[in-house]
């Protein structure tokens, strides 16, 4: 395989982008775990990074997380095959249910964070 194989076709390129998103996300999550560990010692120990560079990095990571999640959930219809009353559920319905569950779980987490932060 030539070193630049992933530049030969758009699908290869976007596949590599999808895989690459894991790296910055892992860095961001490690940083987040450090913050959680610090928060155990109370509000004084909690000092989230607030520099402009980290905010920009976080926004980029959010974009990567959304891209990775959307591509992953869109594929759920390919992988999951359920039957109800011996009839297969259409893959589009499976995908929609995945996105619905994602939205619902995100809403619950947002509610908990916002409600308890007050």
């Amino acid at each position, binding site marked *: *395989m030539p070193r630049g194989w992933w530049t030969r076709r758009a699908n290869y390129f976007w*596949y590599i982008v999808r895989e690459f998103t894991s790296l910055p996300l892992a860095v961001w999550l490690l940083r987040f775990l450090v913050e959680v560990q610090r928060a155990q010692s109370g509000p004084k120990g909690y000092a989230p990074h607030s520099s402009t560079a980290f905010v920009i990095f976080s926004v980029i990571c959010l974009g990567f997380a959304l891209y990775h999640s959307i591509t992953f959930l869109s594929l759920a219809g390919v992988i999951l*095959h359920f039957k109800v009353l*011996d009839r297969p559920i259409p893959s589009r319905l499976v995908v929609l249910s995945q996105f619905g569950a994602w939205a619902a779980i995100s809403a619950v987490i947002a509610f908990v964070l916002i409600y308890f932060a007050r």
Partner: protein
Amino acid sequence: MAAKRITIQATRFDPDKDEKPRLQSYDVPFADESMVVLDALNYIKGHVDGSLSYRWSCRMGICGSCGMMVDGVPKLTCNAFLRDYWPKPITVQPLNNFPIIRDLIIDMDDFMEKLKSIKPWIIRKQELPLGAGEHRQFTPQIDEFRQFSQCINCMLCYAACPVYGLNDGFLGPAATALARRYNLDSRDEGLKQRLPMLAEAEGVWECSFVGECSVVCPKGVDPAKAIQQTKLDTTMRFVLPYGNRD
């Protein structure tokens, strides 16, 4: 009006003379809108250079012999119309990810070994006597595996798969699709015999879901789906108490 012509740049490689493959250009008349790349290759072989070597047989997308890289994309050359490329020249190369034997002919031994390893035939624990009658199947049971049974072993999916290109130990798309075809067949009882090949690290778990295998399949088979569903099945067999069925 002068007849239309098209340039075909075909890979030439003679292992006895050439160090590496090279491209050679041929000027081919494009007389008929229904002409395909295979027709152009046949014209070259018949009228210009009889030494050009390539595989083909049925000329109707059934045998799976004439798979080649057409402008860098794995295609059956009997299904790649010149009108879709004209007036630009067309580059025809042997399928990616396989050793070249000569010109446009690849060595398919690795694929044949992999195909054999997943036992692509119906396995019964105990054969019934002929007098016991046929193994009956109903339409919903056939629908379970019908799509995967359309595979014609053309190997375009292997040429499109960068995972196979990087690691030729990977079982690959078509072999997995055919394993799934038989595992889903209500007459088959060979799942446990195929599982060792499918569930090992270089089986389905090597796939990182690029998805190009399904994009290039000329028969509408979805090998990526077969691989991901097999991943799910093997996981369920491992984690669920009732999953370890035959």
